[in-house]
């Protein structure tokens, strides 16, 4: 009885005050993805990791001091759409392609530490499976 009265009191409140759009990510099948980026065996901090979908949208993450990243679908939601992805990794802010940063990018003097084949001309592809969370580690070679 007490439980029933509690339900009566709380259920309509929860349903009545909720945002109409809270379930908008439920049907996308977003998959949590994380991993570690290393450059010549060393953990790579502050690198941008993009998983680019075929329609040019991307999930992104930034590596921490241990080279670990987690992918974000947008600024409010983590995860990535399942499917085949082109992976692009930058150490400069060029990868962001944000209008707000356009000015900074133009004047950026930082040297990109990662070779072209991992970002602008990326040949790095992965397939994100549906369902459970996954880990993708990348060991990059600075090259020559």
């Amino acid at each position, binding site marked *: *009885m007490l439980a029933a009265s509690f339900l009566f009191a709380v259920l*309509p409140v929860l349903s009545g005050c909720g945002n109409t*759009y809270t379930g908008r990510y439920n049907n996308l099948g977003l998959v949590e993805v994380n991993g570690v980026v290393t450059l010549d065996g060393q953990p790579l901090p502050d690198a941008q990791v993009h998983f680019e979908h075929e329609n*040019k949208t991307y999930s992104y993450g930034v590596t921490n001091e241990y080279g670990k990243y987690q992918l974000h679908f947008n600024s409010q939601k983590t995860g990535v759409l399942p499917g085949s992805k082109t992976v692009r990794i930058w150490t400069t802010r060029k990868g962001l*392609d944000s209008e707000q940063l356009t000015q900074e990018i133009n004047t950026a003097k930082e040297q990109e530490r990662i070779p072209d084949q991992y970002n602008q001309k990326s040949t790095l592809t992965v397939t994100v499976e549906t369902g459970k969370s996954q880990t993708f580690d990348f060991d990059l070679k600075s090259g020559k």
Partner: protein
Amino acid sequence: MTKFSLITLFGRKIGNKAFTLVELLVVIAIIGVLIGLLLPAVQAAKEAANRMRCANNLKQMGIAFHNYHDTKQALPAGWNNIGFCWNGAILPFIEQEPLFATLVFSENNGDPTNNGNWDQANSRNAAACGTPIPTYQCPTFTLPYQVNDLVPHRAVSCYLANSGSWSAVEMIGSLTTAGLTYTAKQCIAYQHWQQNGVFYGCSETRFSAITDGLSNTFFVGETPTDYTFAKDGAGMDHWHTGSPQADPFNGSATTNGTDASGFCEGSEIVGSTYPSLNALFVEPTLHGHIMQLAFGSYHPNGANFLFGDGTVRYFPNSIQKDVYQGLSSRNGKETVGF
């Protein structure tokens, strides 16, 4: 006491004992049901009132547009070549004349404190952009109305003017970024001069140019502004009066005749019907550069729109795309009724 007493119905005499547990639980259950019935109704009534206030904001803008047109024989430009925007141009017509009088109209007049740029520190123009104007704020908007974004305490706008249905992105370069291909009249950018709506770069549309009719063309729609939200490098931020990012000459000082160069962030003040209504919510996978041009609102399942004749109508999310786009074009000869 009496044989009709409620207490006797439970088989007890009054005055001897306290309530039983069952009686207490019944009372709690009844109160629970009452609260359960009332609270959602209160919330819904609040939202209905907010929607009404929002519609009134749009109505005020509608009256302002007509007075503006009577004065200048044309509507204000969506934004012009110094980044001055439509919602700044109608300030004197929504009883914000003192604020309008403080504005400096110049690209760079050499004045070290008030050179006319919208993001100059401590300038009068920056102060105007940082002034919250209730007419441009939807009461259902939940975030703070002011935030530091290029301009200190920059005040948001919850309304975008209608640029038509052709533009998918802001800058020509962003078409490729968003995976789109340029087509002359279906998929263009705000940097292109010609649009099929009412407000865009240097538009100054006259009523006579709106051949679909003022009652078949909307002027302003709501947008679900969220400056904390970003997707694919694009933010859902919208502002009023002036915009350093919409200023075509802020970044680079050249034009090639047909297109502005430099920044043309028209999405700060105008929207397009190329993306669906409420794309932020109904199409969460859409590219962020396209999504930021969409109209929409935080009201349930739709948004308020101001028409050229001054009426305010509520479009449901389920509105047909061709009707939606037809209502945004000024001269498309669509036979749409809404």
